[in-house]
């Protein structure tokens, strides 16, 4: 709570800094007899004051919050008696946990160990001191900055340039966020995946035919050894994605062709929002539709036809995923079809071709690279899609290409391995990161190829 109050105080100080700075600057030039002209407009002097008042204080606050726990832990540990300090690393962290729990008052029974109780009191004291110190440091920092800037305020001061330099710095920092995110993704996944590959060789992961990531707790348990051959998982992913593309590509492409070449404005005003609506529906809703409506329907139909259909069949998940991807395919194809110059169509009509012949022999071949790029993007979408398959596809990794059987996918496995209690040292949990690494690489490659194709094609007609 003190943090909030501190934050509000700093903000109030900054605002008053702005007002004071602006007031003093305008007073400087409007004073009777003052012949000087200000370098910048008065509000820039105010902004400069507010900036110095708020930004360093906030940076200190963030750093303080980040470093405080580590420093306090260190201080508490160094005050413990030597026989505890000489404990091995993991025991020591247990003791530290005890102390922290005691300090936070979450322990249900008072610890009987006087050493721990004393250390906890010490910890509480240290925290109180740290909070006090933080408040004092931050507030004095703000106030000193406020006073110092006011002292220096003069008509010659290049306030606007200072403020603008700061704004540009902020812009540059923000623009690097995308890079940091990518680096963060790659490092976090790679790091955990490397740990997984220490336990399970890469070749077994990539080419093994059996996937059952259950690790036994005891060595003599049934099914003690986990198997981490990811081929069945890949095959399942590809099967579901292929079914999805079988649904999405013809429907999406034909919709795009009809909308851009045939449809009148009335049809377009109805059909476009429908497709956008399909695109805007959350995937969990599609998952619901797949699991509770489509899958039972397909199973019943199969039973009527005398087929043995699993209630978590790949067909149901793929079908619904295909519906989800229709708007994706159609909007991308729409773009490239519209980018084909009208001259080419007119040329074809001039030679006597019908509309469908023009589309089939002129427009589509001309737009083909773009359409292929769009389809590749759609495939990467299908591979990375999670909720539909989590809700509608199975968990057991069957190595099959029969769409009526249950299969599992990469995303399903990631979710099942990571939801719930995790221990970050078992291959079972780490396997999720290895799968994610593969997923990331595959989708990245598909995207790079697709963007390359689309970009090259666009240049042709521009």
């Amino acid at each position: 709570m003190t943090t909030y109050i501190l934050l509000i105080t700093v903000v109030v100080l900054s605002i008053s800094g702005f007002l004071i700075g602006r007031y003093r600057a305008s007073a400087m030039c409007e004073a009777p007899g003052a012949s000087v002209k200000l370098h910048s407009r008065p509000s820039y002097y105010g902004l400069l004051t507010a900036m110095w008042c708020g930004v360093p204080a906030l940076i200190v606050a963030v750093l303080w919050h980040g470093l405080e726990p580590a420093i306090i832990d260190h201080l508490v540990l160094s005050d413990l008696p030597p026989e505890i300090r000489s404990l091995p690393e993991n025991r020591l962290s247990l003791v530290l946990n005890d102390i922290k729990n005691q300090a936070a008052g979450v322990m249900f029974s008072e610890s009987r160990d006087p050493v721990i109780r004393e250390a906890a009191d010490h910890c509480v004291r240290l925290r109180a001191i740290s909070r006090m110190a933080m408040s004092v440091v931050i507030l004095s920092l703000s106030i000193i900055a406020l006073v110092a800037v006011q002292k220096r305020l003069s008509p010659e001061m290049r306030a606007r340039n200072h403020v603008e330099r700061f704004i540009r710095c902020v812009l540059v920092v923000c623009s690097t966020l995308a890079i940091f995110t990518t680096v963060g993704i790659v490092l976090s996944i790679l790091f955990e995946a490397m740990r997984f590959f220490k336990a399970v060789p890469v070749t077994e992961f990539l080419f093994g035919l059996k996937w059952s990531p259950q690790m036994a707790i005891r060595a003599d348990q049934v099914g003690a050894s986990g198997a981490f051959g990811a081929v069945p998982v890949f095959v399942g992913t590809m099967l579901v994605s292929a079914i999805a593309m079988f649904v999405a590509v013809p429907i999406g492409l034909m919709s795009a062709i009809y909308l851009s070449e045939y449809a009148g404005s009335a049809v377009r005003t109805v059909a476009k929002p429908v497709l956008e609506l399909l695109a805007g529906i959350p995937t969990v809703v599609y998952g619901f539709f797949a699991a509770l409506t489509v899958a039972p329907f397909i199973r019943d139909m199969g039973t009527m036809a005398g087929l043995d259909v699993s209630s978590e069949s790949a067909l149901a998940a793929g079908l619904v995923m295909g519906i989800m991807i229709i708007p994706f395919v159609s909007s991308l194809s729409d773009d490239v079809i519209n980018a084909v110059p009208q001259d080419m169509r007119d040329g074809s009509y001039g030679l006597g071709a019908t509309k469908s012949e023009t589309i089939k022999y002129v427009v589509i071949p001309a737009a083909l690279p773009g359409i292929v790029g769009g389809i590749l993007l759609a495939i990467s979408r299908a591979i990375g899609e999670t909720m539909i398959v989590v809700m509608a596809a199975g968990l057991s990794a069957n190595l099959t290409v029969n769409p009526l059987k249950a299969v599992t996918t990469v995303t399903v496995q990631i979710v099942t391995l990571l939801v719930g209690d995790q221990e970050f040292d078992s291959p079972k949990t780490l396997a999720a990161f290895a799968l994610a690494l593969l997923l990331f690489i595959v989708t990245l490659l598909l995207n790079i190829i697709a963007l390359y194709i689309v970009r090259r094609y666009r240049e042709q007609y521009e």
Partner: protein
Amino acid sequence: MSNHRPKSGKKIGSMEIVSRGLDRRYGAERRFRFMGVAALVTSIVFLSLLFINIIGTGYSAFQQTFVKLDVNFDPHMVSAEDPASANYPGLIKKAMRSLFPEVKKRRDKRKLYSLVSTGASFQLQKIVESDPTVIGTRQSVWVPADDEVDMLMKGHVDRNVPETERRLKDVQIQWIDRLIEQGRLKKSFNTIFFTSGDSRNPELAGILGAVVGSFYTLLVTLALSFPAGVATAVYLEEFAPKNRWTDIIEVNINNLAAVPSIVFGLLGLAVFINFFGFPRSSPLVGGLVLSLMTLPTIIIASRASLQSVPPSIRDAALALGASRVQMVVHHVLPLALPGMLTGTIIGMARALGETAPLLMIGMVAFIVDIPSNIIDPASVLPVQIYLWSDSPERGFLERMSAAIMVLLVFLMVMNLVAVILRKRFERRW
């Protein structure tokens, strides 16, 4: 060009060749056109099936069955000094027994008590706490019925199924019919659904906790991704030199836009929870993950919007002596803002419907309490839907569909606002 075919034997005019094939070609034309229509109709049919399905299963969740009980607030069982410790389940049981005095056997009694929701005793407690004068009086109270009774009232339980295959036994159905005759069962608007958090009992489960969780999560997302996204777009469009560094940034943004959402969840798990030690299941971490995910959407929309501002505006501002920052802040940004906001709202709508990355950071926990700040454990609307989809009770299926309806309404409102914003402020230069 007219007679380029070799003339052999009989002389055929080119017009004749063309008209011979004409029927076939027009047939092909019609078929092609029909395929286009069929594709569109298929999409529309799928969409309407989806909606019919959801509304069909979900509309009944907006009503809830209540039982009227005559509760005797016995001063021996409830005391005004300490209303929290009274035996409210006992009061309910007594009221039920007084309705059906003929029930004597223990097993039957238990069946009888199970007709009323376990939430009924909390309701009595609330009544006593708000008005202690009820103690010692006899009051008619409408309390929620058990979800099985609710399902029977809504016609989802088939009475013709053999007794062993349904949860409600024949004797219970007889009691329910008697209650209906006495006018002690009624369906009314389900306020519980909108005012409470998750519960193990369908009749007590609501979406308020999830809605509040979604709200906090989106708040964090908006607070982080909108400024950062706009700043990035402004930098790339207005200030950045065209060099290798900005190329790298652009490639990165495009790739991030296509990274599967679940990978962002893994990033959140590894970086925010394991490395920085932020609290699990909190809207703070959820918002951080979703803001990284929506950042590319906002950047791309903002850049498009900045590009649509004509260069003449910039030239005019610069010519009048404005600095570059002044030109951007005073002239370009206000003109580009509606487009940026539209993109942001669309990004937020996507974030609202996102589930997979939030599963990774532990927002799937069963959470009854309604979160009160951004570090409380919370769930969000789509995750709540996913959680309920795992429950076998019919009552949860109905509530899940209703929650989907609520989610879709939120999404439609957001998209509508975006469309209106675009229509209202869009300028053609």
